[in-house]
């Protein structure tokens, strides 16, 4: 007979794990830092998508943002590289082990300042990975200097005004070949949540620039990356609804107002248009709209660009199904005969 006092069984996902299994260490970031909210969204999205934590490789550079992989998914492998160099590490690791689900977390300084060279080359590769820039317009960890995403005219607490235009990592990513590009806001729980789930389902480079206010150094009047500025200037392009392949689709949608994108694994990404003329499958339109937004001081959020059919770097290189890292030496080391043949060419 059932007792009445027992605690309800914890909710579990489709692979039998509770959300607790996706948690990380206790954060050491400032209370209210946008980066913490993003960690929470990652935990929820991974949990809901039923991702096996051991399959995930978390990679990051250096910065407050880059520390955050320690604060989610302790059961996953984690890899903190040096400042700005995570893209090449991720590429090397993915080429050696294509089975990893690679999640990179970077900052605006890490990606757009010191690491911009690595960043643009990563975008060109369309390497299957999720790359998140936790964008606060400053170098949080080194105490709040402007980064390369800071808007022209924005002001530091000390009164210093930024005199150069920002690098828009989203339009760069779209231009260079990333196949899923979005911008969100750490405070927009619903939007970021759906966007992250779609990101996990996407095959190819996902580049998400998530505005993530630095409460300690860049959340004041005059900042364009503050909570208040985002509340006033965020222009969501769509209402995002993600239906993973393992869930029934029960609600019909109106093709007039909603674009549906079928992802590689059969999941569906439904974008109910808020801005009617915006088409997230049009690269050129997306870049043009981003340029306009800069002029109008709008922060466009949503799925800016998606292409769910482009070949990835792994497809392009035609790598064996079995990861190089676990192929036995007998398969990958050239035989004595092969080396003898090579030597024969030199006689």
């Amino acid at each position, binding site marked *: 007979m059932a007792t009445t006092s027992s605690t309800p069984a914890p909710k579990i996902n489709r692979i039998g794990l509770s959300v607790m299994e996706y948690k990380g*260490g206790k954060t*050491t970031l400032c209370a209210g830092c946008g980066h913490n909210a993003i960690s929470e969204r990652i935990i929820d999205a991974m949990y809901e998508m039923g991702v096996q*934590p*051991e*399959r995930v*490789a978390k990679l990051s550079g*250096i910065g407050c943002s880059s*520390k955050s*992989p*320690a604060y989610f998914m*302790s*059961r*996953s*492998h*984690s*890899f*903190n*590289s*040096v400042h700005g*160099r995570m*893209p*090449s*590490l*991720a*590429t*090397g*690791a*993915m*080429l*050696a*082990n294509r*089975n*990893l689900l690679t999640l990179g977390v970077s900052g605006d300084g890490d990606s757009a300042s010191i690491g911009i*060279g*690595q960043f643009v*080359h990563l975008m060109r590769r369309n390497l299957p990975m999720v790359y998140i820039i936790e964008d606060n317009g400053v170098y949080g960890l080194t105490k709040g200097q402007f980064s390369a995403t800071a808007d022209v005219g924005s002001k530091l607490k000390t009164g210093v005004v930024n005199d150069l235009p920002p690098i828009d990592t989203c339009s760069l990513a779209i231009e260079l070949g990333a196949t899923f590009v979005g911008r969100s806001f750490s405070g927009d729980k619903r939007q970021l949540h759906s966007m992250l789930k779609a990101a996990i389902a996407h095959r190819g480079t996902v580049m998400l620039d998530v505005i993530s206010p630095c409460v300690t150094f860049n959340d004041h009047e005059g900042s364009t990356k503050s909570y208040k500025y985002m509340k006033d200037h965020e222009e969501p392009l769509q209402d995002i609804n993600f239906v993973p392949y393992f869930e029934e689709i029960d609600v019909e949608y109106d093709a007039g107002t909603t674009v549906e994108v079928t992802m590689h694994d059969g999941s569906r990404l439904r974008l109910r248009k808020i801005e009617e003329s915006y088409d997230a499958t049009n690269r050129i339109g997306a870049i043009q709209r981003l340029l306009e937004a800069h002029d109008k001081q709008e922060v466009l959020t949503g799925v800016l660009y998606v292409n769910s059919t482009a070949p990835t770097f792994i497809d392009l*290189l035609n*790598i064996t199904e079995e*990861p*190089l*890292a*676990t*192929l036995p*030496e007998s*398969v*990958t*080391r*050239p*035989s*004595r005969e*092969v*080396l*003898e*043949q*090579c*030597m*024969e060419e*030199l*006689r």
Partner: protein
Amino acid sequence: MKQTFTIGIGGAAGQGVATPGDIFAKIFSRRGLHLNAYNAYQSIIRGGHTFLTIRTGPERVSNMGDRVDLLIPLNQDAMNRHLGLLTDGAACIYNADTITPGVPAKGALLCPLPVSKLADISRNKVAQNTLAVGAGLSMMGIGFQSLEEVLTEQFKKKGDAVVSENVGIARAGYDYATAHFEPFPWPLPMTNNRYAVLSGNIAMAMGGAAAGVKFYCAYPMSPSTGVLHWMAAHARKAGIMVRQVEDEIGVVNMAIGAAHAGVRSMCATSGGGFALMTEGLGLSAMMETPVVVIDCQRAGPSTGVPTKTEQGDLWQILGAAFGDYPRVIAAPLDIGDCFKIIPEIFNIADRFQCPGIVLCDLLLSEGRLSVDPKDLDFAPVVDRGELITSVPSTSGSSGDGVYKRYKITESGISPRAVPGVPGYAHTAASDEHDEDGVLISDEFTNPTKRRNMMEKRMRKVTGIEAAVPPPVLSGSRDADITLIGWGSTKGVIEEACEILTEQGIPANHLQIRWLVPLHGDAILNILKDTRHTIIVENNYSGQFARYLRSETSYVPNGYIRKYDGEPFMPHHIVEAVKEQLGGKSRLSVPAHEILV
């Protein structure tokens, strides 16, 4: 003194200096002769001046030697620059239509070829080169058959007409020389050996393949590019993932990423690229991810002289990356050693989970040497150290919660699990960390833990020292002179010792292959019995001499240095030794006589 024969071919870039060079090299190696080739050139696609020397003989030839027996100048400039190198018994074959000879030394022979009479130069732009090759072989006493074979192979793809045209031209040169020029007094012999001709870059690439490298990446930089070229050309055949990356920062990090995921990975560059890699090297040290980086030194600083050799990067390598960390640094001694050193250094880097650096130089990277493939091990022992790539079937457990990636051990070596092994998840970080990978860099900074981790890593140094053999003295213990060198100068110092000994100055030789660990005690033990020591190196400040002194307090009696971009020739060393034994100086800087 050993019997050798040297050909010097000079011309402008784009005039086809390489082709006759390749033809001679093939013919010599197929005759079972040893050879050493060195090309002095500039960073230019057309023009400038290129001077290729090929030295051959029945015994091992380890360097370009001191004399040129046959000079083939392809233009007036080459004639003007090099005729003066010829001495008694040497000859110069040249195009009499276009080149005015200078006055040769007594006993040196001028061999003018009436090129336009012997070949249709309107049809064949390189007829003068082919005629000269034919003429030269005739004078060396080599049958025409071997040249016909090589030319046929070379032009086969272009069809029979081209083959017969070229063979015809070569034949005309050959017959003309037989009829008009005196043959060399020493016809080139033949042996039953069959050598392959390797550059150091090819040797290092093949050494990597033999060592089981599965990931190679690079950004092109002379003189290391040959490694990338071999890797790219043989990627499929040898089963290696080869990537060209946007810059050397990307290169080293990508190599570390692949290594971290579990494969053997390697990259090569020159000094400038290496400078960009140093931060990444520290990452490899801190995460204890083995990676092998090759630095093919060229003359620096900065862009320097991209096509010239130097041993000037030693202190850059010694000082690369900040902080203290275990590593291994080796300098290959010759082109064959370029092959052998790669599997060796991989085994050490893998066992001790640390970066391995190969300090090569242009002389070896781009020089070519006959190597007997029998001397190379195509299936060397591969020791990947304590590497966990799957859940051990015997353990029964998945290792959950017990695996400590940076476990503190006696040896300093902690078993390394690759990402993706269930139960072995961990954090690998550039920040200092605890045994289990938790960062101790900020909030949790802990002096005790930091000290323990530092000591753990550095304990590996003891193991590395035991894994690397100490250097040995070559030649008789009883010598008046002991020459000390490192890396690529082995061949030329060896020959200088032979010459000195023959001339009544018994000389022996200590060549250093492993720079870190250096085995200072073993070196001191060898040097304590010597009479007069001289350190020979290809740089300005005596970088190795300073290093040896800093490690052992040892000060030699003298120094021989060269930093003009060109390698040592044996007589440079021989003469400098005599000068120093005569008490004239303690530092000799020989001048390079060949004008390149």
